[in-house]
């Protein structure tokens, strides 16, 4: 009897688990989106000021190391990159690929969408203004 109940519990768990996992990832995606939205205007402003730029690794980076001494820049860059890493992992799981690959695709997207005058870090490590 106990064995049957245990078997039924396992079966139900196996059916419910993927659904609950996808719900959890959807919830965390929404949470991440909220964070990105909150920071968006600041990120855009810092990009326009030429203090931060996009890299080929799909992350934000200070154009000059001394800009990271600015508390606001440091906070935004670190928070944005932490959330981006989470996003890449979640999307990679969803699409059955690697976080690196998602990061590269996002970098490509950011490079193409970058506004004129924004800094973009090239593969050789040099910054280039669009």
């Amino acid at each position, binding site marked *: 009897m106990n064995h049957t109940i245990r078997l039924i519990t396992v079966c139900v768990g196996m059916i419910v688990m993927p659904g609950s996992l996808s719900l959890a990832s959807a919830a965390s*995606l929404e949470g991440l*989106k909220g964070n990105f*939205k909150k920071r*968006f205007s600041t990120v855009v402003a810092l990009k326009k000021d030429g203090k931060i730029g996009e890299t080929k690794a799909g992350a934000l980076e200070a154009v000059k190391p001394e800009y990271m001494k600015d508390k606001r820049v440091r906070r935004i860059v670190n928070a944005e990159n932490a959330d981006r890493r989470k*996003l890449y992992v979640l*999307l990679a799981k969803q*699409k059955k*690929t690697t976080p690196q690959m998602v990061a590269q*695709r996002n970098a490509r997207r950011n490079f193409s969408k970058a506004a004129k005058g924004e800094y973009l870090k090239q593969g050789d490590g040099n910054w280039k203004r669009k």
Partner: protein
Amino acid sequence: MAFPSNSKYDFQWNLFDQRPARAIMKREEDDEIMINCVPFRCTTIPALWMLLGLFATSCGHTVDVKPIRVEPIHVTMDVNIRVDKELDQFFAFEEELQSEVEEPAVDEAAKPETSS
């Protein structure tokens, strides 16, 4: 047993035997005398045949025409497209917010200059 290596002997080789088919001894008076061949192990001819056989087999090329597989490229393209689509959907809010951020700047630029 060694066969006498004399220029007076002329050999007619049988390629399929391992010994000369017959040896003909030439005499000064042009008489030909058949000499019974002593079992004479000649390894040169069979060795040549074997070499020829080996050469023939080693030179044979086998060309396997396998069907062209393009699946991995398709899969990679498919994943790239799906990831791009997902990223576009996720960051769709950027365009709305971008227009909100840019609007004040556009308005200011559109304002006519008022000089007093």
